[in-house]
């Protein structure tokens, strides 16, 4: 039960052990613990940030959707307006075309009628001349009665 030189041996062992534990366990482990703490803190901060950003993104998305809806409504309205316009234009041009055709037909009819009249006039003149020849039993020189005949034609 004496104190012996074992004491020196144990002191040396203790000193070496403290050094070893500091070098290979305490130092690396406390560093790792600190790093993990930092990691967790960072993770939590990142999560919070992400949540915040998600909230922002949701708001932005809602805004975009609203805008898109409005634009779509505008485009539809414009398209409808344009369609109406096109229909109106088509109606207008159809009416104009119809009128044009009608006018042309009327003009042609008139022309035909005039031509027929001219023809009739010519025949009436020759009839009248033949009639007059029969009545007078002699030849009538149409040239001599040019003026009379023209009057007659104008009267018919």
């Amino acid at each position, binding site marked *: 039960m004496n104190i*012996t030189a074992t004491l020196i*041996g144990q002191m040396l062992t203790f000193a070496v052990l403290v050094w070893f534990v*500091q070098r290979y366990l305490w130092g690396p*482990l406390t560093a*790792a613990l600190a790093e993990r703490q930092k990691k967790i803190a960072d993770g939590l901060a990142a999560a919070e940030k992400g949540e915040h950003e998600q909230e922002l993104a949701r708001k932005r998305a809602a805004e975009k959707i609203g805008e898109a809806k409005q634009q779509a409504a505008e485009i539809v309205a414009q398209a409808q307006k344009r369609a109406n316009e096109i229909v109106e234009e088509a109606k207008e041009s159809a009416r104009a075309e119809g009128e044009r055709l009608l006018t042309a037909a009327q003009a042609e009819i008139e022309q035909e009628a005039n031509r027929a009249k001219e023809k009739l006039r010519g025949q009436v003149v020759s009839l009248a001349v033949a009639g007059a020849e029969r009545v007078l039993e002699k030849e009538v020189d149409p040239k001599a009665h040019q003026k009379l005949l023209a009057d007659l034609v104008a009267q018919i």
Partner: protein
Amino acid sequence: MSGEAQTSAEYIQHHLVNWCVGDCDPVTHQAAGFWAIHIDTLIFGWLLAGLIAWVSFAVGRVLTTGTPGTLQNVIESIVEFVQTQVRDIFPGSNPLIGPLAITIFIWVFLMNAMDLVPVDLLPLIGRMFGIEYLKVVPTTDLGTTFGLALSVFALIIYYNIKIKGPVGYLKQFLFHPFGKFLIPVNIIMTAIEEVAKPVSLALRLFGNMFAGELIFMLIALLSFAWYMLPFQVALGGIWAIFHILIITLQAFIFMLLTIVYLGMAHTAEEAH
């Protein structure tokens, strides 16, 4: 009956002798002077220190900051426990205190835990190899407890001088605790106070472990008749369970007081 008593005394006596080398008494096999070495104390101290070193190395090499493995988890909880103690007690910061405290805690705990190995098992194995005397609990050797306590004491003095300066440390001897009019008393008081630190550290641990081992031996002595076996087993079990508390507590106290003493060494002089 007297023969039986003699045998019991011899049994206990035998168990209290270290495996001594060097300046040993050839008759009693006890250490005769300072220059004797208790090989068994050193060997078990080294084995346990080696265990700590190996585990430290194994864990320290594969540390991960992610999810820790089982062993790392256990070590981490011990480290965090010690770290909390140091942070709570120790003023300021000193990178040596943490490793010092955890080394004391674990090494002392493991050396104490040798007490839980059945008292006759290792000496029996030792006798097979021709080792006559073997004491397996290093902390029942004053060499170990004083070795630790004196190491701590050396650090106390070192940090006292480093932090307060030689003059500041001297002033502490001169003017504490009674002020400048009672200098001789102060010197004696402070010297006793300082010397009491390592002595109390060493003797507290030694006393607890020695007494614990002695009780294990007494329980082992109960096997003088076959019908004592159940009592012996029951008592041994109860004492072992209680002893788990003691060995942990003693290791913890040694660590805690080391931190406290070194903390005091780091605190600039102030009123007590």
